[in-house]
């Protein structure tokens, strides 16, 4: 019996094979296309902007094999950023120069009283100058990355420029820590005096009195100084955060994140520098009696009356005019006999 079944099975198999052989040529006529569902470069780029896959090495960012937006970032870095920087910084310098030539130094109208009052404590000045020193050094070393190869490289040659740039990179990285500390301290230290209020609206409406010369009243910080404060706090936060992203590359970011961080860092930084040029101007040659506030920490009574009347009234109410004016000025306005 088993033999019969085996025979039947054999014959059935043979018939089945014959049928298959007859059908096979029909199937073979269908062209084989192994790429019917293969991934295509253009399709992937249109879909995802960059092409990623799986690799066999621990370096995860190497799994991205193509990111054409690198060329867009190149355009930002080589064309957009230098233009923003040049227009903002040179534009600011030109504006200030014109302003200086037209308006000249803002003088103390009543002349020096010879009486000084304290404006910034030693701690406040230390924080200001620590932050300012870091800012100037980081501005120069940072601008070197964008403008150095155009402005400095042809002058000193590739080898010297490379050595300077390497040192500049390290200085830029390490100075970020005291700079960030400075921005945090500035934020805490002067926050109380920098909340915008109605007096600032009036101050700004009257152009700070700088143009018209009518000296609107102000508390400890006027509208313009509050502007500088918020530029430092917000601009400082943006450059610090984006800077640390760049300093710790690919910690939780991708290539797109790094490019964005650099774009934020570069744009905010050049605008920040432009704003600080104006700040330096008004604190030095732009206004008589302003620098000593951050220099020796004191200002002339008449300067305070002219520019910060409400603050002076506050101070006089707090400690009494006699106490405030006890300290004679080292440079009396009226010549002594």
């Amino acid at each position, binding site marked *: 019996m088993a033999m019969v079944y085996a025979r039947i099975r054999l014959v059935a198999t043979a018939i089945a094979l014959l049928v298959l052989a007859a059908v096979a040529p029909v199937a073979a006529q269908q062209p084989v296309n192994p*790429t019917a569902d293969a991934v295509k470069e253009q399709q992937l780029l249109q879909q995802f902007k960059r092409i990623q*896959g799986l690799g066999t090495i621990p370096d995860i960012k190497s799994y991205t*094999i193509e990111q054409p937006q690198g060329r867009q970032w190149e355009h930002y870095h*080589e064309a957009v950023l230098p233009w923003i920087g040049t227009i903002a910084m040179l534009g600011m310098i030109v504006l200030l120069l014109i302003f200086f030539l037209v308006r000249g130094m803002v003088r103390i109208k009543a002349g020096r009283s010879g009486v000084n009052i304290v404006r910034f404590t030693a701690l406040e000045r230390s924080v200001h100058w620590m932050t300012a020193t870091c800012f100037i050094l980081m501005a120069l070393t940072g601008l070197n990355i964008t403008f150095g190869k155009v402005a400095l490289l042809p002058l000193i040659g*590739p080898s010297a420029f490379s050595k300077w740039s390497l040192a500049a990179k390290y200085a830029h990285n390490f100075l970020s820590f005291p700079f960030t500390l400075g921005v945090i301290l500035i934020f805490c230290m002067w926050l109380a005096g920098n909340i915008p209020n109605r007096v600032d609206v009036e101050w700004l409406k009257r152009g700070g009195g700088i143009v018209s010369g009518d000296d609107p009243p102000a508390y400890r910080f006027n509208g313009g100084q509050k502007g500088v404060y918020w530029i430092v706090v917000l601009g400082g936060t943006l450059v610090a955060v984006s800077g640390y992203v760049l300093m710790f590359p690919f910690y939780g970011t991708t290539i797109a994140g790094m490019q964005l961080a650099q774009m934020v860092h570069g744009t905010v930084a050049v605008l920040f520098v432009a704003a600080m040029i104006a700040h330096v101007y008004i604190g030095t040659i732009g206004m008589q009696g302003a620098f000593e506030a951050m220099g020796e920490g004191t200002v002339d009574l008449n300067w305070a009356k002219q520019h910060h009347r409400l603050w002076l009234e506050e101070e006089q109410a707090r400690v009494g005019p006699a106490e405030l004016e006890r300290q004679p000025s080292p440079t009396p306005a009226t010549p002594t006999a």
Partner: protein
Amino acid sequence: MARMKFLCDADRCIECNACVTACKNENEVPWGINRRRVVTINDGLPGERSVSMACMHCTDAPCAAVCPVSCFYTTADAVVLWSKDLCIGCGYCFYACPFGAPQYPRVGNFGSRGKMDKCTYCTGGPEPDGSAIEYEKYGANRLAEGKLPLCAEMCSTKSLLAGDGDIIAQIYKDRVAKRGYGSGAWGWQTAYRETITT
């Protein structure tokens, strides 16, 4: 002079990673650096493709454009090289590179990068051809010996092609014409601003 290019025929790549190994061995590439790597797209799915990718030696190379110390240069064969003496390890070339080619050895604190390293198209560097110092810094200079990059030369399926752009483009065209399909010259449009019409 030839215009040297790379072409990876993804329909032939079998993801054997021999190009990666050959490159590491031939150039004594520093630890942790892969000048070439193989990446598989849609791994394990129907239609997956593997691509061997390294520096493509772009036309108007973005890395060279963004370098703050201008340490890049292009040879007469259109190979994009750089000077490790001038490189400051800022990392900008990596942001600009469409192919993720530049890499930096980790040195010192934070994410501090050392001197950049990438594929040299087996063409060494600015030092004298075939010198010991050139080999130490950049690896082999096969081009000076009349040889093409080892990754492509030893590719077992001849998926990875190196050589003059026109010649390898013709080889690829003939292949596609004969076998009837091709997933394209990966990266060519981005790198060379032209592709191979098949």
